[in-house]
Structures are given as C-alpha cells and as structure tokens.
C-alpha cells in the first residue's frame, strides 16, 4: 500500500511545476507588455458584428452517436482490469468479453443502418 501511494507522489509535484510555470508565463507576459490591460473586443466572424450572442444551446446533429459512445465507454472500463486476468481466467474470459463487444457492435451496425453515423 505504501508502495502504491509512493508512485503517485511525483504527480502533485509535477502539477505544481506546471501551474507554477503557467503563472510565471503570465507574469512574464504582463511584464513584457508593461501591465497593459486585456483588449475588450467583439467576436470575429469576418469583421462585422453579429446580431446575437453566440452562447446558445448549440444544435449538434451527432447526439445519437454520443449514446453509443457512452455504452462502449462504460464497457471499456471493464476491459482495463480484464487485461490482467485473461490468462488466469482462461478461455471463458475472452469469450465473455468478445461476446459482450459483439452485442455492442450489433448496436453500431444498427445505428449505421439508421444513418446515425453520418450527418452531412
């Protein structure tokens, strides 16, 4: 257990170094531009102002894909521990995993037939 924790000790140090580096970069930038304030600007779409704010409920046409993706993504989580026990558990582990994946792939085939994977 002690050993397992020791492996993570460099991570916060690394995070600290990166955040420190980013802060130093911002400081250096502020020094270089003599403390000039950020520019307040309108959004760019070619030079003319838009008629509304861009913040909106953005219509994405790929949302059916997100559903299939979630199903696979959850499945992926099981695959990580699975790789360590494949030999131990033998053929049954492989059969079960790929049977499950096969079922998910059937969903992909169905989604493809329904045109969910192409939206333009």
């Amino acid at each position, binding site marked *: 257990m002690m050993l397992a924790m020791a492996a993570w000790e460099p991570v916060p140090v690394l995070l600290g170094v990166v955040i420190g580096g*980013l802060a130093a*970069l911002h400081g250096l930038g502020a020094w270089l531009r003599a403390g000039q304030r950020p*520019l307040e*600007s309108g959004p760019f779409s070619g030079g003319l102002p838009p008629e509304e704010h861009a913040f909106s409920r953005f219509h994405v046409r790929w949302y059916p894909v997100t559903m299939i993706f979630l199903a696979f993504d959850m499945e992926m989580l099981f695959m*990580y521990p699975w790789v360590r026990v494949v*030999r131990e558990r033998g053929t049954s582990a492989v059969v079960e995993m790929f049977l499950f994946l096969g079922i998910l792939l059937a969903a992909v085939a169905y989604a493809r037939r329904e045109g969910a994977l*192409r939206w333009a």
Partner: protein
Amino acid sequence: MADTAPLWAVVLLPFALVAAAAVVAGLDAVLTAAAERGRGGRPLRAAPAPLRTGLRLLGGQPRRTTAGDPWLGRIGIALVPVAAVLAGAVLPWGFRAVTDPVVGVVWFNAMEALAWAAVWLAGWGPNSALSLIGGYRFLAQGLAYELPHMFAITTAALGAESLRVGEVVAAQRGLWFAVWMPAAFAVFLLSALAMAFWGPFDHPLGRDAAGGAAAEHAGVDRLVLLAGRWLLLVVTAGFSVPLFLGGGHGPWLPAWAWTLLKTAAVLGLLVAGRRLLPTLRMERYLEFAWTVLVPLTLLQALVVAVVVLNR
C-alpha cells in the same frame, strides 16, 4: 525494471517536453516554408519561427470578448499543457519514468481525456460563434477517435498482461508490439494526432472557422493553447514508443538514446505525413472510425487475447 525518478527529474520533465515541442514545431515550420517558398526560399531559416511566434504572443495583449466567460476559457486553455505534462509523467525515458504506477496506462488515458474539456471550454469561453463551432467540433472528434484509441491502448496492455507501463516495455524485450499488433499501432498514431487536435485532425482549430476554438484567444492565452497542443502531440506520439516500439529496447545504443531516436522518428513521420492529408471532417470520418477502426482494433485485441491464452 522501471522505477520512480528523483525529484530533479520531475522538475525537469516539463522543460524537456517543452524543448521537444519547440523542435517538432520548428520542423513543421521548415516543411511549411518549403511548401510556400520552395527549396530556393531557404526553408531551414524558418526553424526558429515557432519561438519568435511564441515571443510575439507572450508580449502581446490578451483579449476578452464581449460578455464572454474569460475564466472558463482560460481554464480550458490551461488544461491543455496540464493534461500533456501529467500524461507525460508515465512516459519512460529509457526505462525510467517520472513515476510508474500499477495503472500507468489508465492514468495516461485519463489525462488525455482532459483534452475534451480543454478544447470545448476554450471554444465556449469567448462567446463567439466561430470559436463555439470549433469547440463542438472537438467533441464530435472525440466521439470518433477515443474508442479506437482506447482499444489500441488496451491491446498493448493485454499483450503485456499488465497496466504498468514499465511491464509493457519489459514485455517487448524480444519482439516489439508494433510488429505483431500493426493495426493497433497504426490506430494509436491516428488517434494521437486526433487527441492533440493537430494535423489532419486540426478541424477544431480550423482556418476555415478563423481558428475555431483558438479564434478569439490572443497573447499569453493563445501561446499556452498552441504550445500546449504541441506538448500534447509530443506526449501522445511519444507514448507509442513504450506501448508499441519496445521503449528503450534496442541493440548497441543505451536505452535513453533508443527512446530519443524512436520518439523522433514517430514525430518526424507524423509531421511529414501531415502534408499528405487534408483536414478530416468528422461528419465524414466518424462513420469510418466506427465501422472500420473500431471492429479492426477489436479484431486485433481478439488476436492478441488468443495469443496470450496460448502462452
């Protein structure tokens, strides 16, 4: 095999990655100059261009858009280098990484996944239609690349029957995984580009949308976002070395030199190969990813699983 590095190595890692990113960006600038000006235009002189650009951005004024959410955007931008360096923690240099936890492969994957949030936040923050489009483009891209990517990573881990990066490297003492898992290797390289939203997968920052998620960011913010992207590319492409190219294994040369050589070769291949492809738009690519790449990587995993069973 691999063990934890001393503190100085932890501090050194981000700087080493930044240096590597600058070199790769310089190579890209040279190739770009060669296309623009031809051989007679002395393209080699463009090598320091990324550093000059970096300096220009550093001294430039940051920019905020009307009624935007600058802090949300800034968090997204900062996440790019943070994700890259934290993922780099498990990247072995020779046989030693900054850290080599039992679940190193999962850690790498988890850190990379931060890019999803990073690019989307960077695109959402400025309250600008074009940068919003760029941010959402990355989400669609994630849906296309992430699963083949994860299956490719898992396949390598399966070949070593371990999630510890050091053990994945050790398992390739005799034969590199790239040799008997070519599909997983190729898919990994593709998804490394997609994750770094660079090259043929640069649609989220596409020029057609005036820079997409980066369209409204200037000054230091822009520098961190664009440099972070190079960092991410170096780290994700570099991770193919321990996963598929045998890490530090190789004859004659010391392990660190092999790591360096292999990483340079992979990055050189990706930067040069970028010139062959136009930007892949997800509304056309996603179908390919799901109907070709996902089954292909799964088939690859099945083959590897059978090999592992018969060991």
